[in-house]
């Protein structure tokens, strides 16, 4: 069943509830280059398989970029 989540401020529908790891691979994101926050809580990299993304979740996925 499709679920609705918010990633980086944008509403998105994904086909079903899935682990953070699966979500990252859906978006072709390499786990070692990013960090994930789910509903204002950091998801440790070691928990990407264990933590699942549920309907209504708000996620932030960030990386390092150039800055001063």
């Amino acid at each position, binding site marked *: 069943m499709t679920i609705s989540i918010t990633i980086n401020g*944008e509403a998105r529908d994904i086909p079903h509830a899935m682990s953070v790891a699966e979500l990252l691979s859906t978006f*072709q*994101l390499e786990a070692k*280059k990013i960090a994930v926050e789910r509903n204002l809580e950091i998801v440790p990299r070691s928990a990407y398989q264990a933590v699942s993304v549920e309907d209504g979740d708000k996620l932030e996925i*960030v*990386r390092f*970029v150039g800055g001063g």
Partner: protein
Amino acid sequence: MTHTPEDKPLTLAGREYTSRLIIGTGKYESYEQNAQALKASGAEIITVAVRRVNLTDPDAPMLVDYIDPKEVTFLPNTAGCFTGEDAVRTLRLAREAGDWNLVKLEVLGDKATLYPNMPETFRAAELLIKDGFDVMVYCNDDPIAAKTLEEIGCCAIMPLGAPIGSGLGIQNPVNIRVIVENASVPVLVDAGVGTASESAEAMELGCDGVITNTAIAEAKDPIMMASAMKHAVIAGREAYLAGRMARKMYADPSSPLGGLI
């Protein structure tokens, strides 16, 4: 015969660095140019920002593909954060992305000046230190504020020389000097340096290091400016250690007065 003045390495959160120059990674034409400038600068630490990934273009170039966090210390900043909570949230993500504790805290007060909001900076510093971070802190050039940040437990104090990105040089050298004299943690001028001589000036004032981004990235030749900054920081440091001559009102001949024909 060469004589190298004795110096201790720059130590930040227990780690020693040979270079006293930290460079930013914003505003470059490309990450490739940034990586070349980094090499020319000899810097061992770069500041980086934390931003949302681009979900629509996963193949967009990533900073970590050009500069290896295993070879260079990434110093995540809180640029763009206007509250203590924003800053803490950003750096928690940075810690997860990078797996290290050394961070640059900057809590801004105003978009036009990018001047630090000091009450929020104090609060954010306390929150971060309680959470196990090693905090290098961007601050105004107020010696009392600098001392307060040191007492809170920041591992480096980083007063601005002039507003971020302004390239105006060190506007208040007396305060920078007073901050240096009263600090027992490293003091780095962060922001405001526009060219090599201004980095040298910061070092001659006794600063432990300089952070610069725009002065290099917006130079006509960023790679050559990166090299100039490297030499300026070394020159300024050596001049500081050497101890400058006293200023005098009148001339003092360098050649002997006796033995004139």
